[in-house]
């Protein structure tokens, strides 16, 4: 607290530390000056509140620290446009994507916002594949920001800074799983917080999966044992992975077949044993690499075809030109979130050996 106060006064006196993280208005006119000045004063005033109780972090032994942070508006200084849960995980521990895969569960949050504001849906960054045996999950290691836009009905659009809190429940796993919950309040940000928060939101946003371009023609064929997802009109790629949005549709631990030709590529996915009814749409992400994830919704056409087992129709293992399996979890791991907003733990990134079951 004392340190924050000292830093504030010092920064403000030097007129360097309490600015917006990016120039609010580039022209040097009166409006810009006033806007900057307002922000500068607001940021300094906020620091007075730094002495108030801030984050309530879960117990130290939870192997995850979670922090409530918010994104400042660039148009309306001192107001907010998005909110997020920043998870920092001990090395080797993970939390889960919206489809957790075979085990685990995604974090759940209940936001508490000032009157007139609500959260939009969580924007889930690209997950990584976790586990290497017969149990495969989807989630995040190291650090992840789960962000949600703040939607307001009040005039002016952006939200004030105070009065935001969240109750979050999550499970953090490595060889074992530890459930945790926390009540988080948005701290009154320092000038440094503004910069850090802004940067985290910007970095995360750049790495979110994007809607598939309209030029892609995506479809899926279904037979007794597998889905064949076809993407035509997309980029020429050497490999791709499918991450299903819904649990219980594909066998997460099965290697995914990949085949390409001049028209595009196909992914061969073994059906889950839990899937007993036809589905009309197979939704998920097609991921080529870090920051190259696309949301697809493939309409499914069923073929009643005799099957002799997985992979019987499209041979997934080298017996056919341009067809190869994609069992390479290390490569899939390279899509890991450390490429998105950096690893907190430093070592133990892509060269780390163990894949963690929960």
């Amino acid at each position, binding site marked *: 607290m004392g340190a924050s106060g000292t830093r504030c006064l010092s920064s403000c006196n030097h007129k360097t530390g309490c600015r917006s993280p990016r120039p609010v208005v580039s022209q040097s006119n009166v409006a810009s000056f006033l806007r900057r000045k307002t922000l500068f004063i607001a940021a300094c005033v906020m620091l007075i509140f730094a002495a108030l109780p801030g984050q309530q972090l879960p117990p130290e032994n939870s192997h995850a620290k979670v922090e409530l942070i918010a994104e400042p508006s660039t148009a309306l200084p001192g107001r907010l446009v998005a909110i997020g849960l920043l998870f920092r995980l001990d090395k080797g521990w993970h939390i889960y994507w919206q489809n957790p895969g075979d085990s685990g569960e995604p974090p759940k949050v209940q936001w508490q916002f000032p009157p007139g504001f609500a959260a939009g849906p969580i924007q889930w960054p690209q997950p990584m594949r976790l586990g290497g045996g017969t149990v495969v999950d989807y989630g995040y290691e190291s650090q992840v920001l789960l962000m949600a836009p703040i939607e307001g009905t009040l005039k002016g659009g952006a939200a004030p800074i105070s009065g935001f809190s969240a109750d979050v429940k999550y499970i953090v796993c490595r060889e*074992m799983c530890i459930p945790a919950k926390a009540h988080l309040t948005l701290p009154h940000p320092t000038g440094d917080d503004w910069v850090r928060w802004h940067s985290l939101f910007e970095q995360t946003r750049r790495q979110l999966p994007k809607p598939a371009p309209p030029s892609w023609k995506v479809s899926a064929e279904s037979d007794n044992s597998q889905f064949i997802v076809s993407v035509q009109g997309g980029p020429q790629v050497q490999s791709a992975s499918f991450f299903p949005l819904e649990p219980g549709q594909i066998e997460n631990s099965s290697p995914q077949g990949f085949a390409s030709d001049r028209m595009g590529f196909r992914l061969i996915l073994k059906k889950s*044993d839990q899937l007993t009814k036809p589905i009309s749409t197979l939704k998920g992400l097609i991921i080529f690499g870090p920051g190259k994830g696309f949301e697809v919704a493939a309409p499914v056409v069923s073929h009643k075809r005799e099957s002799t087992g997985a992979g019987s129709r499209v041979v997934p293992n080298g017996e056919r030109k341009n067809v190869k399996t994609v069992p390479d979890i290390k490569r899939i791991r390279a899509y890991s979130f450390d490429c998105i907003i950096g690893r907190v733990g430093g070592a133990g990134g892509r060269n780390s050996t163990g894949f963690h079951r929960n």
Partner: protein
Amino acid sequence: MRVGETAPAFTATDSNGKVDKLSDYHGKFVVLEWSNRGCPYTQKHYNSGNMQRLQREWTSRGVVWLTVLSSAPGKQGYVTASDENAYLSQVKAAPTAVLLDPTGALGHLYDAKTTPQMFIISPQGALIYNGAIDDRPTTDVADVNGAKNYVSAALEEATAGKPVSQPTSRPYGCSVKYPD
């Protein structure tokens, strides 16, 4: 394992040293419950008494209930036979038997992925349910009340001679701690 398929035959040693075969139970409904006492999802159902209640109810109605422990030595949930028997007594569990599967052979045979994952085998030996214990994939004890228990629902239907209306679900929980 897909529902409708014949449940694969197995032989396993239980915590009393007895050798159990699936064929021993031909003509009865058999429940397989994958368990790991260190897993918070399993603990939800034992700390609330839910699992013990189900075991008592269904074994009293003639169903065979086999708890299966597939944790490898050194991993969470691995126990010796005597440890397990002491635990069963402590938590007042009432399965027909607890099968010790430290090699994971039985787990892999059924492709069990989580604890608690549940399977139900018909008296004729067909798999009629493969999935979660209920519809609340959480670790909160408070979620046991009010959950739809898929195992009881399936057994109620099957023991009444009806088809199981929900024969699968995502088997939530912790991953089974197989050997590396």
